[in-house]
């Protein structure tokens, strides 16, 4: 039912305001950059190399993540063992793990001076070098293998247990079950998962900044950053930005059409009883696979924990100052995300006109490069204000826009449900505007809002993106500080800062998520 006798209130149009703001933020800044480029320059060979590298590494990362996730998810879906819940929780961890921390962990395990290299030397082999293509892919698989595994696991659990019972009754072997039950399920989920990961890898900045670089391992996003920061070549940055926008928009639309929303906290149900795959060899294969996956995911985290503990005492004061700045940025970012998401969700859920456009505006940041938004804002303000002064507010704002798609996915369904269930009642009782929100909507959506805010805070806390553009040494955030410590080989302090960063990110997420669910009405 689209009709509502709605008064035109500030509250009613807030969604349009939020949408206009978001369009200005992502497309307006693109325009600013494009205008500043004045004249324009063509793309050089280095830029084509960046384009090729971006697409290639994303393709390989997505292929590897998906290909490895299928057997891991299958093993998780058909085996019940102690620690299964723990492992599934671990699969969710990379989502709020700051990229820079993961990179440090991966370097400690796989880097030139890492544990694996030491073992290689001991075995008479050469040390590993993960800088460049292999490092970028390794980090992307580290982040996206768990994501893909979770999505596939959901798919497996969506197969009714009765189907497995029926299959057993018909005497189907593991192979038959794969053909008749598992393959059709995968065919539904796999393309969307692949496209989503591909998109994530295309927009990757922090991984490319830390593990890539140089003419042979630069992503477009990194090239935009370099064009600004080192050459201040606006024309080139603008052209690259347009290129990036086009690729991301294409990938985002593709991913959006194919993918289903990932629900968090699911997949913990015990697997259904299976009568196939009881043979000793498949059992051993599954055990081996799960062990390897656990080691792959847990090793960098364990390393951070242990090395970090000893480094904590060595932390210089500026690290703590950076931590406080980061927390403030994260809190602001979470508030902005929640405000924008609620304004949009409220208006969309009440069946307002142009609902599709409103929703799309929230997802624009998937295609818009944070570097472009950041640099556009930079160009727009620097005739008036010292950009270093507003580096942190801009960071908070850009991070908020980046978290918005996740927040909208969490909030739109619950706001819609609240309107569906209680909207008519509220209408007849004359509950409008703020009172309607306070007494009807908010109590119904608080858990989802807490989750969304927690996610936004954690993502912002760990983000190393637009803040690197402004990079005022006296106003660094914790991730940027960590990057600098790594760059100057102060590994003790870097390890401590990494542990601090990951602990703060998790803490922020936990506080919001917990706060949202506490005493929540059922």
């Amino acid at each position: 039912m689209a009709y509502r006798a709605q008064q035109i209130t500030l509250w009613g149009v807030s969604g349009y305001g939020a949408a206009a703001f978001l369009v200005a933020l992502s497309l307006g800044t693109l325009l600013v950059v494009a205008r500043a480029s004045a004249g324009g320059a063509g793309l050089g060979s280095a830029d084509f190399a960046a384009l090729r590298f971006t697409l290639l590494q994303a393709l390989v990362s997505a292929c590897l993540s998906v290909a490895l996730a299928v057997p891991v998810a299958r093993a998780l879906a058909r085996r019940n063992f102690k620690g299964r819940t723990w492992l599934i929780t671990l699969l969710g961890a990379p989502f709020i793990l700051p990229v820079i921390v993961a990179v440090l962990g991966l370097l400690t395990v796989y880097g030139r001076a890492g544990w694996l290299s030491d073992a290689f030397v001991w075995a008479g082999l050469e040390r590993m070098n993960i800088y460049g293509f292999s490092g970028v892919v390794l980090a992307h698989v580290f982040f996206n293998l768990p994501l893909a595994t979770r999505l596939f696991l959901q798919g497996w659990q969506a197969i009714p247990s009765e189907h497995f019972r029926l299959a057993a009754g018909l005497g189907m072997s593991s192979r038959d079950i794969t053909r008749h039950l598992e393959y059709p399920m995968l065919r539904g989920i796999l393309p969307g998962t692949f496209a989503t990961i591909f998109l994530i890898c295309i927009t990757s900045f922090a991984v490319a900044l830390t593990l890539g670089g140089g003419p042979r391992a630069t992503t477009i996003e990194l090239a935009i950053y370099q064009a600004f920061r080192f050459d201040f070549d606006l024309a080139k940055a603008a052209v690259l930005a347009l290129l990036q926008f086009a690729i991301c928009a294409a990938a985002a639309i593709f991913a959006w059409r194919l993918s289903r929303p990932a629900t968090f906290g699911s997949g913990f149900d015990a697997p259904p009883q299976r009568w196939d795959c009881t043979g000793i060899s498949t059992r051993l294969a599954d055990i081996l696979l799960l062990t390897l996956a656990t080691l792959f995911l847990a090793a960098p985290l364990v390393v951070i924990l242990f090395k970090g503990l000893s480094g904590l005492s060595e932390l210089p004061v500026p690290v703590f100052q950076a931590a406080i700045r980061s927390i403030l940025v994260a809190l602001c970012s979470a508030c902005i995300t929640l405000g924008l998401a609620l304004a949009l969700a409220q208006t969309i859920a009440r069946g307002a006109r142009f609902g599709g456009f409103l929703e799309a505006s929230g997802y624009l940041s998937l295609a818009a490069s944070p570097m472009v938004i950041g640099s556009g804002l930079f160009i727009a303000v620097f005739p008036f204000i010292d950009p270093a002064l507003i580096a942190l507010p801009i960071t908070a704002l850009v991070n908020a826009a980046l978290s918005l798609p996740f927040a909208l996915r969490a909030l739109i369904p619950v706001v819609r449900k609240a309107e569906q269930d209680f909207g008519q009642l509220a209408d007849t009782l004359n509950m409008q505007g703020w009172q309607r929100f306070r007494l009807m909507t908010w109590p119904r959506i608080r858990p989802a809002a807490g989750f969304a805010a927690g996610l936004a805070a954690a993502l912002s806390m760990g983000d190393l993106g637009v803040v690197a553009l402004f990079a005022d040494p006296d106003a660094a955030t914790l991730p940027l500080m960590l990057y600098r410590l790594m760059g100057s080989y102060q590994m003790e302090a870097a390890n401590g800062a990494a542990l601090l960063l990951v602990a703060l990110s998790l803490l922020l997420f936990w506080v919001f998520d917990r706060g949202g669910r506490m005493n929540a009405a059922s």
Partner: protein
Amino acid sequence: MLHLKAIEIRQGDFGLTADWCLKPGQKLAIIGPSGGGKSTLLSAIAGLVPIAHGSIIIDGRDATTLAPADRPVSLLFQEHNLFPHLTIGQNVGLGLRPDLKLSMTQQQAVENGLDKVGLAGMSARMPRSLSGGQRQRVALARALLRDKPLLMLDEPFAALGPALKTEMLELVDQIVKDTGITLLMVTHDPNDAKMIADEVSLVSGGIASQPRNTNTMFADPPPELRAYLG
């Protein structure tokens, strides 16, 4: 009291017309097959669904373009009548002030309202701790407090067992008698209509029929009603 002047409701392929009026204090049952538009008719009178043609006069005022909250009606749904996150007292209090800033007198009025529906002293409880029948009593208490001349019930007792349903209908009957309000009740059960309503309107085939006396209607059912009763 309620005058539906040649109204027509359109929703895609679905259409419903009605052209009749009710006197104050009358009790009308609206019966008919599901999907026939019984609830939609109530929603239209309450202002939750727009009408394409005609006009709706309630209590001598043209309510056709009024917002739901401005119409002199109370509407009880089959479910979702209470906010599960608010206490019983707050849920009733919403009928007096949509922002819940209740004065002492108003709070007393809430308690009295609960007393009238047999839920004295329950105002601090949460809806989930009440039975289905009790929850609908709370909604009735709120409707009483809002003091609107037209009370509309959209099958609010359909989910209750027979004994409980009879009890609730008796309560409604009592309320109507005490206050002199006009009642419009949607039901799919002919027994409900016989028990409480003086008149019956059949909604079927896109028409809400002219209300007729309950006894004569059931004694000599027209073909559509006969088809519905089976």
